[in-house]
């Protein structure tokens, strides 16, 4: 399993920038930028992201953890993944 260090953030950012953001026309996303109001994470994107996180980091993310708080930003997603890896 991947260690929770700065690598995780990079991996999450890459997925968000390359797979989710293009359908909104955004090319640059800061670590604290809002992912929900901006529409980067929508109802299709969120489960693509969850599936990616589960596979890439070997974690299980329950439906009850799919909340606006946990997916507010790249940093928030990283925190969620870290909390599920313990």
């Amino acid at each position: 399993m991947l260690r929770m260090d700065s690598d995780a953030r990079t991996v999450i950012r890459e997925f968000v920038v390359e797979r989710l953001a293009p359908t909104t026309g955004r090319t640059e996303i800061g670590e604290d930028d809002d992912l929900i109001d901006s529409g980067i994470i929508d109802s299709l994107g969120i489960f693509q992201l969850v599936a990616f996180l589960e596979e890439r980091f070997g974690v299980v993310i329950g439906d009850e953890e799919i909340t606006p708080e946990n997916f507010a930003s790249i940093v928030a997603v990283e925190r969620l993944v870290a909390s599920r890896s313990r």
Partner: protein
Amino acid sequence: MAYLLQQLVVDSAHRYPDKPAIRARGRSLTYAELEMRSSQLARLLRERGIERGDRVGLFFPKAVESVVAMLGVLKAGAVYVPLDPHAPARRVSAIAEDCGVRALVTTAERLRTLPPQRLACTVLVSGEPLGTGEVPWSALESFPAAPPPESAIESDLAYILYTSGSTGQPKGVMLTHRNALTFVDWCAATFRISADDRLSNHAPLHFDLSVFDVYNALGAGATVSLIHEEITVFPQRLAAMIEEHGITVWYSVPSALVYLLLHADLAARDLDRLRLVLFAGEVFPMKYLRQLADLLPRAELYNLYGPTETNVCTYHRVDRWRLAGQDRLPIGRACANTEVFAVDDDGGRVGPGATGELIVRGPSVTPGYWGDPVKSRQALLEDPHLGERRYRTGDLVTQDENGEYLFLGRRDSQVKSRGYRVELGDIEAALYAHPAVVEAAVIAVPDDDIGSRLRAFVAVRAGERPTTAALQSHCAGLVPRYMVPERIEVRAELPKTSTGKTDRTRLAADARRAEAA
């Protein structure tokens, strides 16, 4: 009897002045406040030169002010145009230009994303005004609380809803007060909406499902909870909101209900107050409908059908006893004061069992597309004797042995994805606008969860190799997000049929194979 939409609220405001009419984002507005604020907005718009029949764009995420703005524009005798707050600025601008929007109700933040507009006035729901053309929401307070005198009649336009067009230009469907009230009155009688009801509003306001939620709630003195865009992403939150707000009437596209079924653990919720679940806009996959019916044993379920051009024109009440043996759900029979029938290619009516295009007659039928008499004539058949216009839906149907209509498919390349009406040509036009693209074809791959998934194939100029992300980003600048293909495959050239056309059948097979892999 109300002959203008805004009149629906007058009686409710007298009877329930202190009752919440609208809830949104943790705020609520009473009937008395809604009446007063919308009258003040109408006065403000009039003072700023907005006249009867002028178009006023509404461009902001859902909030209690959304409904104030709708009613305020109508009370000014004007026409509102709900603009998708998540659509790219270029598309929003193109729509505003197409219908000659003369005023905007928006937020400072959204306004700054648009190129400069030539407007009589801009009302800001939030944010700091710049210059005298921009009026803050707080300015409403200085206007009289009585509306301007009524001058409109029922055949005047109430709102224009823009929908995907096959050549890359969105089409503005014009709807009159009579069009909307025909639907709203039918709903009120059929579904017995009362002051005790609590309605949800899941659909975006530029989508005609919202007409039901907002006006049926206001007409009955009920409360409508506007579900803001961000909550629709989080199924658990959405389900919690249905429970906490005590929603009794829900109306959405089937995709939204499937999303809840798959991810919200509905069985763990207390949804007993939900007495009526209506859905429209796309085909509800039977396996999910059966699950929903089991989870909500007390709710009545209805399949409603009708394009934006007619609003709902047929309906079918789900029969739980028949559900197990049904392989597809009928769209049902015509609503009151509406006639539907199927015709063959020569325009002759076809009987039960035969396939034909569904035609709609009645007072809910649109007068046409804004500024486009050619498209209007193509879509609306003029009856030579009565002079009335009948809408050609483009939907292929057949009538079953019970006299109910079944939807079979489309005559053209319009598809539904997450309940949104999408013209494949609209997306192809966006792809062709990319400098490297020489050929483009968009394929809709059928999908149980969201109706269809959009896949694109493009051929590019020699020496160019744009990435999928770059092509998606390009499309996102031109079309709303739900129209941006999830996958875009770049090829040297696209396969051709023997007559030299793009071989869509082969591409569809390729797309399905890629999906299964």
